[in-house]
């Protein structure tokens, strides 16, 4: 009896959590007459991919297709991931493998900068981007997102680098391997899974970001997905089928990646809070 109550509560929580996601996908597959019908059904009676077809091939804004936004987002997120992972790996190695003055200070700074409200930096970064002549370009976003994702990426990678047994590197050093060789042949392959996890985190940061993309990009051709979403979603007479199809396309990559790394995110955010 008690078991039953607990399980029922579990189902209720699951329903609350998953329903909006389910409804998004379900709506995206319904023909318009079902979406705007007087009696909504949980699943489409006659599922259709029409909304996806229209989103991917139609011109939402004259001369620009959804595929263009997708490419912009992939470019921005991809460049952010590559650069930020490389820089983070160097720093994580320094912090996990060396003892030096300012090491503790650097770690504390990493924690503190993660608390900076990024929303407060829109105005000064707008100024910086204007002065660098990067306004209305994708690199303005890449630069910004590298800054945002780096502190957490270093924090996370630090643990992965520290977990590689030092004995391996020492053995290689005794065998005459140079530092570069040790790094490339031993550390890098062993840290690779951590690098993937960190990269996914940076990807999600860049892929989801709205405010800065909204502020730094003026040209519709250079919109990233989130900006494009708010643009054609804000119109009157919202075409919910299209909006839900677009939302699903924006959400799915994140969801897949997220599930792969969620454990790391928790341990990174509450680092050191749970001992033993």
């Amino acid at each position, binding site marked *: 009896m008690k078991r039953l109550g*607990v399980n029922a509560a579990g189902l209720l929580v699951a329903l609350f959590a998953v329903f909006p996601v389910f409804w998004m996908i379900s709506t995206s597959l319904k023909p318009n007459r079902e979406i705007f019908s007087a009696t909504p059904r949980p699943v489409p009676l006659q599922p259709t991919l029409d909304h996806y077809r229209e989103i991917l091939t139609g011109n939402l804004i004259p001369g620009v297709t959804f595929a263009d936004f997708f490419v912009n987002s992939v470019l921005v997120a991809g460049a952010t991931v590559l650069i930020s992972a490389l820089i983070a790996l160097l720093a994580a190695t320094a912090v996990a493998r060396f003892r030096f003055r300012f090491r503790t200070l650097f770690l504390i700074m990493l924690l503190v900068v993660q608390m900076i409200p990024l929303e407060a930096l829109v105005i000064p970064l707008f100024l910086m981007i204007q002065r660098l002549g990067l306004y209305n370009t994708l690199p303005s976003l890449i630069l910004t997102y590298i800054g945002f994702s780096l502190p957490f990426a270093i924090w996370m990678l630090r643990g992965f680098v520290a977990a590689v047994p030092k004995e391996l590197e020492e053995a290689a050093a005794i065998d005459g391997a140079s530092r570069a060789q040790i790094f490339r042949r031993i550390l890098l392959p062993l840290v690779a899974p951590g690098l993937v996890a960190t990269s996914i985190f940076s990807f999600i940061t860049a892929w989801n970001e709205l405010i800065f993309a909204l502020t730094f990009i003026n040209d519709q051709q250079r919109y990233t997905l989130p900006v494009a979403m708010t643009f054609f979603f804000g119109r009157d007479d919202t075409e919910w089928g299209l909006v839900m199809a677009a939302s699903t396309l924006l*959400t799915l990559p994140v969801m897949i990646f997220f599930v792969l790394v969620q454990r790391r995110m928790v341990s990174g955010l509450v680092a050191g809070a749970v001992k033993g």
Partner: protein
Amino acid sequence: MTTLTEATESAAARATPARRRRARVDRLPYLLLLPSLLVIGGLLLWPLGQVVAMSFYRLNNVRQVRGDRKWPWIGLGNYAEILADPFFRTVLRNTVLFAAANVTLTIILGTLVGLLLNRLGRRMATFVGSCVMLAWATPALTGAIVWKWLFDDTSGLVTWLFNALPDALSQTVFGRSDWTGYGWFNSPLLFFAILTLVVVWHSFPFIAVSVLAGLKSVPGELLEAARVDGAGRWRVFWSVTFPLLRPVFGILVVLSTIWDFKVFTQQFTLAGGTQDRPTFMLSIYSYATAFSPPPKYGLGAAIAVILTAILLVITGFYVRALIRQEDS
């Protein structure tokens, strides 16, 4: 930790001549850190200083921002203007009340779900955990868009549900029976209620998963002992589990406070832009002041500084909590 590092350093010393080693060990870590320091310094710390600097000038023109024209220094003028504006008090009240309500609800719901996940059988826990994870994984933007669709005034599911209520019941409880065309987002209070729903939905999974991780670390013998001594479930939680997880809760509360203080994307989406002034909170107020025509970058910067200062105080607590844990 210290001994381990010393041991490896001496191992390295055996491998390479001492003088070369010293020169390298001294410089290499700094070289490795250099790109990170440049990025963090240039893209986070410098702008942070810049936003403070900008708040002391009158900057109402994009050409000033680009540096083509001089910046007129007005000292604390922007701050004086904000603090004298009664609207700022509304914004501050909105922000504080919203953050307080959301942190409380998120922590309570998250903790309850964490406790629930801990009690469920293995299969059921995996299932519920995965569903909860999906809410967390949804981008803030698309999450808000879906909720807006659920609350659509003609074909939204919530509108349909309220229409499906027996007319008499709906009439006595809410004073209306026809909900078609009802503006869910029109009154500030209802807007904030829906925004709270959206934000709590998005943020309780993190709390639940963290609390679950904490619960798994509580030694079973302790709980067993408390139960043998006759403590009920409620008593066990408050006398054993909660004190052990106090550091976790401390950090979760602070992180949630920081996040809920600067909610932007969901509000921007639900309100459909930056026009809905009665529902402004600090971050969107700062943004709209700076970028909605006519632009007032200096004034917007001053609001951003106030937001940052509030969060800085909260962050202080966070870092202190972390350091105290490292010590204990």
